[in-house]
């Protein structure tokens, strides 16, 4: 098993593109190492991207924020401005595992692990984040909701990696929130996750919104119907009911050891509403 830690994106891409056998990108390693230990994967090549500057930086870019794919949850939490602008994204990233896991786990890894239950992904999708992909054919941006196609299935080409995420500029009176349901208070994989991002007009009416649900389908869902259900409202009771109905209608979950189909649909609706209310509350105080 070969291990490489290139210092440039080009170097990483060249290694991955030229790899014979199975190659894996190592960001935080919190999924990869577990899968290796459990004999689920047995890569011939591991490419550690933590020595690549773009993957490790948080910068302001085109009025928004660029977050490297290998920035850890702990680093995101410590960033002085990000949590003001994107509290939902930061809290989602900080729900991945324990404090110890936070010291390692990354947004890039969470997305590329390809789990529909990934906590940071619904928040990124609700935020309208773009993933910046770099591969042998150059760089391209893809909305986060289009990166994951299904469990362990990604839209990446051979040799392509997620280098960073770009979060768009934030108008005033905007905010976001992410909630997940787990049986314990920590350390579980989301049974359901719901991310909501919204903006208010001068009259506290929701002018824009994005709603994303995790762990209720084969991939994390962007649910435009749920967003439509609350746009133009002040999130009064009827709007909440419409939001819940739209969230329910979008769910296509499975029964498994973490929850039943019925439970996931019920809780998705509840969390979508609760997330929206938190985001609304935050947006009101974000002038």
């Amino acid at each position: 098993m070969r291990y490489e830690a290139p210092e440039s994106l080009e170097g990483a891409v060249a290694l991955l593109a030229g790899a014979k056998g199975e190659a894996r990108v190592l960001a935080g390693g919190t999924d990869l190492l577990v899968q290796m230990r459990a004999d689920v994967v047995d890569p011939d090549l591991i490419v550690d991207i933590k020595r690549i500057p773009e993957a490790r930086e948080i910068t302001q870019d085109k009025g928004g924020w660029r977050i490297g794919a290998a920035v850890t949850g702990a680093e995101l939490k410590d960033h002085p401005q990000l949590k003001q602008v994107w509290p939902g994204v930061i809290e989602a990233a900080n729900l991945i595992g324990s404090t110890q896991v936070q010291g390692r786990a990354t947004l890039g890894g969470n997305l590329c692990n390809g789990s529909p239950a990934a906590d940071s992904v619904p928040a990124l999708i609700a935020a309208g984040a773009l993933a910046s992909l770099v591969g042998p054919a150059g760089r391209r941006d893809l909305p986060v909701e289009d990166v994951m196609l299904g469990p362990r299935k990604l839209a990446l080409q051979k040799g392509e990696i997620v280098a960073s995420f770009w979060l768009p500029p934030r108008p005033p009176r905007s905010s976001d929130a992410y909630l997940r349901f787990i049986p314990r208070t920590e350390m579980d994989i989301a049974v359901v996750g719901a991310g909501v991002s919204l903006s208010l007009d001068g009259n506290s009416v929701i002018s824009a919104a994005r709603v994303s649900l995790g762990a209720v389908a084969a991939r994390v869902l962007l649910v435009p119907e749920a967003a439509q259900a609350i746009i133009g409202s002040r999130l009064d009771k009827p709007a909440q009911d419409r939001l819940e109905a739209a969230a329910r209608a979008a769910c296509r979950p499975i029964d498994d050891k973490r929850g039943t189909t019925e439970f996931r649909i019920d809780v998705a609706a509840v969390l979508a509403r609760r997330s929206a209310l938190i985001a609304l509350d935050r947006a009101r105080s974000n002038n």
Partner: protein
Amino acid sequence: MAKHHIEAVVNGDPVEFLCETEETLLDVLRDTLNLTGSKEGCASGDCGACSVMLDGRLVCSCLVLGCEVSGRKIETIEGMAKGDSLHPLQRRFLEAAALQCGICTPGVLVASKALLERNPNPSEHEVRFWLAGNLCRCTGYDKIVTAVMDTAAAMRKG
């Protein structure tokens, strides 16, 4: 493929070791460097018994590859006491009976020290959530949480 030759700093001392790609930092600490204070409870990042500091960040050493730590600083439970004197957390854990079997204790202590370095006055809620990744099956956490908060209070007084 040949083993990786790694140089790092462990508890302030320069170390050199050889490791295979698939060996974790925990494997290296325990089996190569003979620092068996960090424990393997799960090898999946779910129990925290292998907690160490890596360049000042609290991590599970079972989720770090040995070959990743080239040039980096690692602190383990073995480096917590200075000379003859235990760290105030270690002392308080003894006085407060905050351990029963003691297998989770090294990880809990490393994690608690990391908390107090960031937050000298944590609430009970903050202590509990910070330590959520450190499983303890014996104590029910009560005496651990109390000991961490009492140590914090004592350290604030100096």
